[in-house]
């Protein structure tokens, strides 16, 4: 059936439901449709077709919201029966979502108002607590497919205050610039008009007043950055800028005070304004993405603790102590290293190790934090507290506390040093010449050199090139933390890839059957036997087999960790490990489900990871410019396959623990610049340690570990273009440096010969800045035109 779900747009497979003349892919979607229909929210589908998401089963997922302490932390406001809460809803993606979330009041009368902040993917809900508990609200949202993602770290910190400093400064500078421009206009024409002469002091006084907030407020950052640089003995680009601003201001103030001239207030305010515009442009942020997440975002907020008297209680994850008994349900993450007391465990460690298949555990076994339970409820005993667990200790590594951006010397700062030295020596030489030739002009020339050499255009080149590229990348699904990342990206020469989830897609395994063909009856029996089993491999296999009638098994036995057996009439079917079927294990490191009937062994289903499309082509292209490495936490079962896949050799390492990955990157950094591309928590250390850490994400709105960039998995095959473009961006920056140096030399001619008039400065400075901006924008847009997806 080619029909797609009316609610979520997925194709309707075997489980399709037909309701109200519309196709739905599952009952969940149908239920949401019904809820919307009953409450008059059908225009949800008019705004955008198939906008919904299949609701997940959430019976216990929000139990921690029974805990009053947790609730208190989440609430923004809680007085007189009215509560306000802000939820992060990753699924929010279109105008339909905004509409339905802002009309929550129709689904539950206690919701007073709800307001969406779409760029942040957040909704702020005001509700009456008497009729609606926070937990019910969360479940209501989950039921209509908008599962709120609640991570305690979002709330535990004092609410981050949005910094609007730059906007204020930009406002001040722009305001003063505009006014000073108007006031200095008469001076440009040097008309000897009586009334203009009369009012000159008044005009100049006003200009002086307007320049004060610019110098002392808007330009403050440049002074402090220059001071900081000087203190640590670095001549960064802020030094000549600060020097320029200071000279401009002092010279102009003196000029006005002693009536020597009109001063350079127009250039001064314009300079600061343009510089701030550059900063503002570079500051492209993705409000809905987080580049800072650590393990806390993956872990649940609360867990169910069993008290000694047998009563279940919800406690915060940080309150877990050694010896506590905890309940871990299906799909829940084990929060601490613990001992399995009761229950059948199938732990999926793919978060932690990258291992693709789940591991069965029996009572008495040790479970590590970060594993996800698949199947029934477990009872475990905590061995440590959360922060002392094996996985979480990774975050105490120093790699997580260093600041990559501040350790990196940007192109602009690199040129800033040479530039400052050159300007100061030219100024000294010119001044000494004038001291000998005409001492009255010496001070004039000295200040003029410092003013005209103020590297406004140089300081603008990088922000505009990188800011522009940042936006281009963002449109193509490559989200960078900041502009500095692009410069580091351009220097990369070694690419390290994780395997599971990075080179392979998470969208399921490719399952291949090897063995004797199964008859119809046998296939039907197999399907029904699998139906009764809870093992994740069984579930996955069940999903891909054709549909057969559901029949009742006469007999069903399950041997934990081995396999299952189902019988109907005289036919029986055994499904399980090679050992269970009495077969010799052919290849240790292969994931396979073996089957056999009463007649004997039939064959096996082999689970193979599915590699991303275009992977080989991408690697072929990347190979020419970069060293490639694969660093996998998985076993080496895929090694042969990988080696056959690529027509060339490159190093591959398997069975790498998170700490091993971090150490590998560190040693590789001795002689190269490393970019790590990974996806899970197991790569978090490597991502933090590498020069550029890129997290691959199937759905960028959902979480990814702390990194410098997030790459949409669909755009994985564009990686070589992104890297290439970053390199070209640095070339564009260098060309604009050259261009702005030409302007500086022209200006210096006027300055050194003592002919610098305010009007020349007022023309040269904006002209150079604007032409640099135009040049970099055009160049980057032209270069990125090739970036077609």
């Amino acid at each position: 059936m080619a029909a797609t779900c009316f609610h979520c747009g997925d194709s309707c497979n075997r489980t399709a439901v037909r309701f109200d003349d519309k196709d739905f892919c599952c009952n969940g979607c149908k239920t949401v449709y019904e809820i919307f229909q009953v409450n008059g929210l059908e225009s949800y589908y008019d705004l955008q077709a198939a906008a919904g998401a299949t609701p997940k089963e959430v019976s216990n997922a929000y139990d921690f919201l029974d805990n009053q302490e947790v609730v208190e932390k989440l609430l923004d406001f809680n007085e007189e029966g009215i509560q306000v809460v802000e939820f992060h809803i990753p699924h929010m993606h279109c105008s339909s979502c905004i509409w339905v979330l802002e009309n929550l009041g129709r689904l539950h009368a206690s919701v007073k108002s709800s307001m969406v902040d779409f760029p942040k993917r957040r909704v702020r809900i005001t509700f009456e607590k008497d009729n609606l508990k926070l937990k019910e609200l969360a479940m209501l949202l989950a039921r209509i497919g908008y599962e709120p993602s609640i991570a305690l770290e979002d709330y535990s910190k004092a609410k981050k205050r949005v910094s609007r400093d730059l906007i204020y400064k930009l406002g001040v500078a722009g305001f003063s610039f505009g006014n000073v421009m108007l006031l200095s206009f008469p001076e440009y024409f040097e008309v000897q008009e009586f009334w203009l002469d009369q009012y000159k002091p008044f005009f100049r006084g006003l200009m002086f007043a307007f320049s004060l907030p610019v110098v002392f407020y808007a330009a403050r950052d440049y002074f402090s950055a220059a001071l900081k640089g000087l203190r640590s003995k670095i001549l960064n680009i802020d030094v000549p800028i600060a020097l320029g601003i200071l000279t401009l201001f002092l010279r102009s103030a003196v000029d006005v005070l002693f009536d020597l001239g009109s001063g350079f207030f127009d250039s001064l305010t314009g300079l600061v304004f343009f510089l701030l515009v550059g900063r503002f442009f570079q500051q492209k942020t993705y409000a809905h993405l987080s580049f800072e997440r650590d393990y806390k975002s993956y872990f649940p907020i609360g867990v169910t603790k069993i008290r000694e008297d047998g009563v279940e209680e919800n406690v915060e994850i940080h309150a877990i102590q050694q010896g506590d008994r905890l309940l871990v349900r299906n799909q829940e993450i084990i929060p601490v290293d613990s001992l399995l007391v009761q229950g059948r465990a199938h732990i999926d460690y793919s978060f932690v190790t990258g291992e693709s298949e789940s591991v069965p555990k029996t009572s008495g076994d040790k479970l590590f934090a970060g594993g996800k339970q698949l199947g029934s409820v477990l009872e475990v005993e905590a061995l440590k507290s959360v922060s002392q667990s094996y996985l979480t200790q990774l975050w105490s590594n120093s790699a997580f506390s260093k600041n990559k951006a501040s350790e990196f010397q940007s192109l602009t700062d690199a040129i800033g040093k040479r530039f400052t030295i050159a300007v100061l020596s030219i100024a000294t030489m010119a001044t000494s010449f004038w001291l000998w030739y005409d001492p009255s002009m010496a001070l004039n020339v000295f200040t003029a050199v410092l003013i005209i050499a103020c590297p406004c255009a140089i300081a603008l080149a990088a922000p505009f090139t990188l800011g522009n590229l940042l936006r281009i990348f963002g449109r193509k699904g490559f989200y960078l933390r900041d502009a500095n990342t692009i410069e580091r990206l351009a220097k990369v020469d070694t690419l390290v890839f994780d395997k599971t989830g990075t080179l392979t897609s998470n969208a399921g395994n490719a399952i291949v059957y090897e063995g004797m063909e199964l008859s119809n009856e046998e296939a039907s029996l197999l399907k029904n036997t699998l139906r009764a089993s809870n093992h994740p491999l069984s579930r996955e296999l069940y999903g891909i087999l054709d549909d057969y009638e559901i029949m009742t098994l006469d007999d069903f036995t399950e041997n934990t960790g081995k396999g299952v057996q189902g019988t109907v009439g005289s036919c029986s079917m055994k499904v399980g490990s090679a050992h269970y079927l009495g077969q010799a294990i052919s290849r240790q490191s292969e994931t396979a489900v073996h089957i056999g009937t009463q007649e004997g062994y039939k064959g096996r289903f082999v689970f193979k990871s599915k590699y991303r499309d275009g992977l080989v082509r991408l690697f072929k292209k990347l190979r020419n410019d970069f060293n490639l490495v694969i660093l996998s936490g998985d076993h080496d079962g895929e090694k042969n396959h990988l080696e056959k896949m690529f027509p060339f050799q490159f190093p591959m390492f398997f069975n790498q623990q998170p700490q091993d990955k971090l150490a590998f990157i560190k040693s590789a950094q001795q002689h190269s610049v490393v970019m790590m591309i990974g996806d899970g928590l197991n790569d978090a250390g490597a991502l933090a340690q590498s020069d550029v850490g890129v997290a691959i994400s199937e759905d960028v709105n959902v979480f990814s570990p702390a990194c410098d960039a997030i790459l949409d998995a669909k755009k994985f095959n564009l990686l070589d273009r992104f890297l290439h473009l970053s390199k070209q961006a640095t070339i564009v920056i260098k060309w604009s440096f050259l261009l702005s140096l030409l302007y500086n030399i022209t200006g210096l001619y006027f300055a050194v010969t003592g002919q610098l008039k305010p009007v020349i400065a007022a023309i040269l400075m904006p002209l150079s800045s604007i032409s640099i901006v135009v040049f970099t924008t055009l160049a980057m847009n032209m270069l990125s035109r090739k970036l077609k997806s």
Partner: protein
Amino acid sequence: MSVIYVLLSISVCVAIFFFVAFIFTVKSGQYDDSYTPSVRMLFEDELVKENTKNNNQNKSQTE
């Protein structure tokens, strides 16, 4: 010609007024989310239309 003092101070006052207004609007946070309001303003009609549509449906069902 001393009217120029008056004119200039008026123009500066007007400029400062707008500047202060700008600072206040930034402070109130109305530029923080520049996307959602643009979508939200189109919604009111949907709801009304939906109501009437629903009523019609209900009517046709009862008839």
